[in-house]
């Protein structure tokens, strides 16, 4: 049994940590957060140069051909530094969807741009009033053939070519504020499909939003917007796999953010003096900090559990993959809530300020535990999946 990081992964983690310490410190982050776009395209270029954007993209499309395990290392480091750029949206959600569902041509057209940092992607799945449901969007796709004389975008269609248009509204599109290409779920003839839509195409409009953690999202309206099918694999399966992987990614990120939160909190308890002594000499606070540490270990364990689930290549792993990711997220959500709330409380008033970083970690953790689903509905889902342990009683069986 070996659960340790490989040498390459350790090297990746430590060189990235070194970079972030010097080039992405609190003041750099504050400037990015205050900028109009809320991201730094320069940082993005550096990430591309470091090879981070195409880590899990096959080499034939300009990537490094590695696995999710390396992506998780990056996410954890990004969690420690609270990186604002849309890595999750582009390099995890977007790139994975294209790798899984794109045709050879589509992959050649999209992925090299992702790897070199010139293209932002965003996955547009959620719709108003449906919370985290992705199964049955109201957005529709319509196919018309050019020979029937229906509208196309006028440039690519020739006689006999089928053209697809999307109609509907998406919300909470992570990275949708800057995306160049959307990967959109829509229903056609009762079937869920995945579609690629150019953000600059006619019929596409968006309103940018900022989440509590500073990450950008968008509401996106598709009004008969021209689209390409991403259909080299069944859409429902692709969506499930892409979301499981993205969930595992934010769990790794959460671990990084929680680790830093706890470290900052412990530092504060050691140095902040009241009543003539460091507040960390109070047992009430020591024990609560110890509980935070226990939560952090739970989170590390379950982020690993999720990472192993989405990288497993054994047969029949698919059914367990989703179940394991769900179980992991239940625990990570609970620990993120625990650590983020306690770290503010133990910092006292300073923890409420924008100036001091602990609150920023709390904000990211608060968002993560509500990203892609929340603990309550995941708990219901895991129960519905039968849980992790087979019922058995010796006196019953």
């Amino acid at each position, binding site marked *: 049994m070996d659960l340790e990081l490989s040498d390459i992964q350790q090297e990746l983690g430590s060189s990235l940590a070194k970079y972030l310490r010097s080039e992405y410190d609190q003041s750099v982050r504050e400037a990015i957060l205050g900028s109009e776009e809320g991201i730094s395209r320069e940082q993005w270029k550096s990430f591309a140069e470091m090879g981070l954007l195409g880590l899990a993209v096959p080499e034939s499309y300009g990537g490094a051909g590695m696995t999710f395990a390396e992506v998780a290392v990056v996410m954890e480091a990004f969690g420690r530094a609270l990186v604002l750029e849309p890595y999750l949206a582009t390099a995890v959600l977007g790139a994975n969807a294209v790798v899984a569902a794109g045709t050879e041509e589509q992959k050649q057209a999209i992925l090299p741009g992702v790897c070199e940092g010139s293209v932002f992607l965003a996955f547009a799945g959620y719709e108003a009033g449906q919370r985290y449901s992705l199964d049955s969007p109201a957005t529709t796709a319509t196919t018309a053939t050019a020979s029937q004389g229906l509208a196309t975008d006028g440039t690519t269609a020739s006689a006999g070519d089928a053209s697809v248009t999307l109609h509907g509204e998406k919300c909470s599109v992570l990275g949708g504020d800057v995306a160049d290409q959307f990967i959109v779920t829509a229903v056609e003839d009762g079937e869920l499909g995945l579609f690629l839509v150019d953000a600059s195409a006619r019929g596409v409009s968006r309103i940018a939003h900022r989440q509590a953690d500073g990450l950008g999202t968008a509401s996106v309206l598709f009004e008969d917007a021209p689209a390409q099918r991403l259909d080299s694999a069944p859409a429902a399966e692709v969506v499930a796999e892409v979301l499981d992987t993205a969930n595992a990614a934010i769990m790794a990120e959460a671990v990084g953010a929680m680790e830093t939160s706890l470290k900052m909190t412990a530092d504060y308890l050691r140095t902040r003096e009241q009543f003539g002594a460091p507040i960390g000499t109070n047992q009430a606070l020591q024990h609560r900090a110890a509980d935070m*540490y226990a939560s952090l270990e739970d989170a590390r364990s379950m982020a690993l559990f999720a990472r192993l689930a989405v990288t497993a290549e054994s047969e029949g792993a698919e059914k367990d993959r989703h179940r394991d990711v769900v179980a992991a997220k239940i625990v990570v959500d609970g620990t993120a809530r625990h650590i983020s709330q306690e770290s503010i409380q133990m910092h006292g008033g300073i923890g409420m300020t924008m100036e001091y970083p602990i609150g920023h970690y709390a904000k990211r953790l608060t968002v993560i535990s509500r990203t892609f689903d929340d603990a309550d509905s995941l708990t219901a889902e895991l129960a519905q999946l039968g849980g*992790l342990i087979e019922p058995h009683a010796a006196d019953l069986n």
Partner: protein
Amino acid sequence: MDTLLSAQERDFARQMRQFYRTEIPESLRFKVATGQELSKDDMVTSQRILNRHGCAVPHWPEEWGGQDWTAVQRHIWLEEMQLACVPQPLPFNTSMVGPVIAAFGSQSLKERFLPDTANLDIWWSQGFSEPNAGSDLASLKTSAVRDGETYIVNGQKTWTTLGQYGDWIFTLVRTDPSVKKQAGISFLLIDMKSSGVTVRPIQLIDGGHEVNEVFFDNVVVPVGNRVGEENKGWTYAKFLLGNERTGIARIGMSKVNLARAKAYAAVTKTARGTLLDDPLFSARLTKLEAELTALEMTQLRILSTQAAGADAPDPRSSVLKLKGSQLQEDISELLVDVLGPQGLDFVADRVQAEGFSDLPLGAVDALPAYFNTRKVTIYGGSSEVQRGIISKALLGL
């Protein structure tokens, strides 16, 4: 978690699984699986079978019956034993006094005690805690005054588990009252048949007789019964307690009990279906499953670090104790709650009189187990002691 093991480790797990299920009598395993109390004979029978197959004391030095197993193999040995509901070797013999004698005892003590200790030909009791030395164990007062080649022992020990069966008792006694409390303690082996030793039962809130007080009134103990050096007993005790903490999470047992709660809930009717379908009950159960999985991953992570060559006791084992004991308590509560009103009576037998229906499965042991299990967050270093260790060793507070 089997998928995390190497091929050899999986083979080893299969062997252990088969061994426990074929060699240990079904009747004994059924008792454990259904929470019935084990008699002294049951425990002796089980341990002797284990010992005959080299499975009672694998963590001891090889010359005294140990096995050259890796940390992972030892984990599998214990985990599979718990999953198969095999009565575990008496911890006072195999995890506590045995390793201390093997590490610090004279050759004659080793020869005299180790084979009989492994085979449970001698039943050991633990004489550590005193009425005024609980978590603050080093403040113990039982004295051993040197008189030529003997010690004269006076004082009182308490919480002596299964002391009613004890042949010998290993004790911490004060041999030098003039120095710092930790520095004046020795580790003494005392024959419980000696004149002046009195064992008095303590009734517990679970209705059972599990622990005792042991009184020493001018008990004469040969100096040769001292393990190691005089006044070095605290060092040996710390070594012993370190051994006690590993495996104290009892994850295998918790899995068995959760599976049991689940199976009972599935056959328990409510106004809305079965109890397993009840949203709040199912949420509680499901969260416990996820948390137990997190704890198991933490245990495997610690093992993996050990396998990678770290030798020192891992302070993260305090997290295992803290979390593992809490989970045991939570699961014991679930087993009471499955029963509803019929879980509230202390009963000796599920079968009532002619014409009356049987009590539900689990009705005999759930309530006593619930009250008995309150001990697990108290013994082996209470949860508060563990939090103290974590805040000091891991957070530097």
